[in-house]
């Protein structure tokens, strides 16, 4: 069976404007489709990175003491005791910061006192319930003991370090590549020392937007009352919202010397951190779908126009012996030729756009699988869009040839 490409091609070249326009549409659509999908997938991978945190079952209470008689330590003690006794609560910890919120504290630690401090790692202050309250997994060493939890830093010892810390595996590997980090000593910015007693993995700290959000270390210390303190509360599955309401109702009245600033699920902060990525995804997907629809309609319309303006020729062909499927094939092959031209140009355009994105916006280079996928999709869409007009062409009766309009 021959596809009779030659006559189709020469007919196309004789009347090429419409074909060129459709090919251009296909080309741009391919370039956009491939690059947009690539970005969407990258964002999805970014959002779905493991956090090591029991995201769905944690909520955060922000409390700010503000009167002159407010005492941070007794207040922490009272609130936490109450929270921990609540039915449905697995663990609660005071924390200086909110994980995944893109706000927090970074400090340099180094492995020798004379080393240049050029990297900053995310410091999180918690008590002995901290890892439990996050649902984080200790993969080596031990958790903090109750007696190791230091009081809040005050107005006279604001740069105090603590003698034990727990680090993320990623940070351990950064500081002590290919060594057992347990028992190793690290030095803070004024060379106070701490010993690594535990390793957590996986864990994401406060800054999902940073290049290394998993460079995290935990310090066993109660947060100072200088700024608002956070309570991270982890509940049994399904009980977060009811516990949250209970806690808000009680805590907002229990102590007139402070205000409860907010009580929110941890997912609120996480979603806010990824909001731009999410909206970018939605936007890219919407425009891509619209783009494909418009191109699809363009192909359809051109094919329809070709069919209607060639009714007489089709009738003549049918009258001299062409079968219905010859007619269908003619239009599908014609469409395939146009789409192929578009797709070929589109490949160059897509690679060009991908290169431009990687240079201008430091995005990773386009993965070629996407290009192959995009080519196949557009081909299929082109054939689908041409199918209905081709079928209609096949329905043209041979008797048309004998009539004059």
């Amino acid at each position, binding site marked *: 069976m021959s596809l009779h490409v030659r006559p189709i091609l020469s007919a196309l070249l004789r009347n090429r404007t419409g074909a060129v*326009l459709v090919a251009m*549409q296909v080309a741009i659509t391919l370039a956009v489709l491939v690059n947009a999908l690539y970005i969407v997938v990258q964002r999805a991978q970014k959002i779905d990175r493991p956090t090591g945190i029991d995201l769905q079952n944690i909520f955060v209470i922000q409390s700010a003491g503000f009167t002159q008689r407010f005492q941070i330590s007794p207040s922490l003690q009272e609130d936490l005791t109450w929270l921990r006794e609540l039915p449905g609560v697995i663990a609660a910890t005071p924390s200086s910061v909110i994980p995944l919120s893109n706000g927090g504290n970074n400090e340099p630690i180094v492995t020798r006192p004379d080393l240049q401090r050029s990297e900053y790692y995310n410091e999180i202050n918690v008590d002995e319930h901290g890892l439990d309250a996050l649902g984080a997994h200790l993969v080596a060493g031990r958790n903090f003991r109750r007696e190791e939890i230091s009081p809040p830093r005050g107005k006279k010892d604001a740069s105090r370090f603590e003698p034990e810390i727990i680090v993320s595996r990623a940070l351990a590997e950064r500081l002590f590549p290919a060594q057992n980090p347990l028992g190793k000593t690290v030095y803070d*910015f004024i060379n106070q020392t701490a010993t690594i007693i535990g390793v957590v993995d996986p864990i994401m700290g406060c800054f999902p937007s940073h290049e290394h959000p998993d460079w995290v270390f935990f310090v066993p210390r109660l947060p100072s009352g200088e700024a608002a303190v956070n309570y991270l509360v982890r509940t049994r599955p399904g009980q977060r919202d009811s516990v949250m309401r209970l806690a808000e109702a009680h805590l907002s009245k229990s102590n007139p010397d402070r205000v409860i600033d907010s009580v929110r699920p941890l997912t609120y902060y996480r979603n806010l951190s990824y909001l731009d990525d999410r909206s970018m995804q939605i936007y890219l997907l919407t425009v891509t779908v619209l783009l494909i629809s*418009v191109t699809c309609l*363009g192909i359809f*319309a051109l094919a329809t126009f070709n069919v209607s303006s060639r009714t007489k020729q089709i009738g003549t062909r049918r009258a001299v012996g062409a079968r219905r499927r010859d007619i269908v094939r003619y239009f599908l092959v014609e469409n395939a030729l146009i789409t192929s031209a578009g797709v070929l140009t589109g490949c160059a355009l897509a690679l060009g756009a991908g290169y431009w*994105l990687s240079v201008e916006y430091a995005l990773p280079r386009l993965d070629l699988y996407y290009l192959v996928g995009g080519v196949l999709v557009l081909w299929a869409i082109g054939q689908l869009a041409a199918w209905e007009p081709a079928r209609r062409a096949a329905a043209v009766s041979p008797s048309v040839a004998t009539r004059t*309009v």
Partner: protein
Amino acid sequence: MFGYYTALAFRSFRRNPGITALMVIAVALGIAVCVMTLTVYHAMSGNPIWWKNDRLYAVTMDNWDPNVPFFQDSSLPPPELTYKDAQYLFRSNIPERKVVMYATDGVISGAGSSPAEHVKTRVTTADFFAMFDVPFLYGSGWRGAADDPAQPLIVLSREENDKLFGGANSVGRVLRWNDHEFRVLGVLNDWAPRPRFYDLNGGSFGSPDAVYIPYGWGAELELFNDEESDCWKSEKIDTFKDYLGSECIWQQMWVELPSRASRNRMQSFMDGYWAEQRRSGRFQRPRDNRLTNVADWLRDNQVVRNDNRLLVALAFAFLAVCLINTVGLLLAKFLNGASVTGVRRALGASRRQIFIQHLVEVGALSALGALLGLGFAWMGLAGVHHLYASAHLGRHGGYQELTHFDSVGILWAIVLAIGATLAAGLYPAWRIGRLPPAVYLKSQ
């Protein structure tokens, strides 16, 4: 003639309603997507105090670690100053106005029956209001003398005044800020510069501060910068006094310099101070004392995100496809109606008239498309707004405020519609005008 052509155009639309609807929708979608992205882009890239662009300057000096630059990916100095540098520079009389400030957290209580509430507070010197053209609804800002020693005066934003006093004139009323008594001196009118150029920490489109207190309270009450404070030096910082004397950056400084001469004098004042300090061992990095105007400040701090630039490019690619699509459809449509055109030509219509007639038809099409596109864009922006608003749990301010449909969108739609008419209509109208009439008359 124009009216007649328009009537012809609409008659032609009625002849092929399907294909006309398709073209209108294609143009509408293209314009809608462009209007949406451009509205957000415009809001992002605006200079909210453009009329003072040649007068306002952010003051920065590079006091950072001799071995490691502040930014990994650029050579810019840190965006804030140390306390001691800010104090020294603030003493200069060269600027017409000058401000040193930072953001801190506070709690307001004792204002009528309102419950105690966490408020974003700006600790600032007196010139803030006059310098940034901040409008007052009631009262005024404080005089410079109230900064040091600090007077218990407070200025409320309009939103905060609505919350605390139900929008009444609260000047003279007394309230407690962090359990210290303050007297309301002024209430701002609506003021939310976007981007929040004077302090880009905590999001360039973050909500404006709720209350303002005199700068002297910072040292008096030991208030930290709660948004952005960075340290590099291995120095012990146990007390607030240590912090004030440290190499930590946390003070924001702006100056108003009315002329090039005053700007040059300020620059040499900074350079002189830098040289003197360098001799005593500070400022070991290359000299980089900057006075940056607002436009450059917004650019340096990358207020417009790459994502948004990308979306604008994407929107125009989409519009291009929509227009190419329309060109194809128009050609098909015009050629289909060639016999009618042939008759018109035979009856004496010139090529030029045929060309104009068809261009008018495309223009009408684009106008319809633009109208529909505006509707789509309005819906789209409302959707994006909703997306952001729901993520913020109903809180105001922030990025969602950039998604308001406004006159800029309408302007863009008009420009795009004219562009679309020319881009999509010129070639088909020209093609149809060139057709030899005889051929089409014959086949009748």
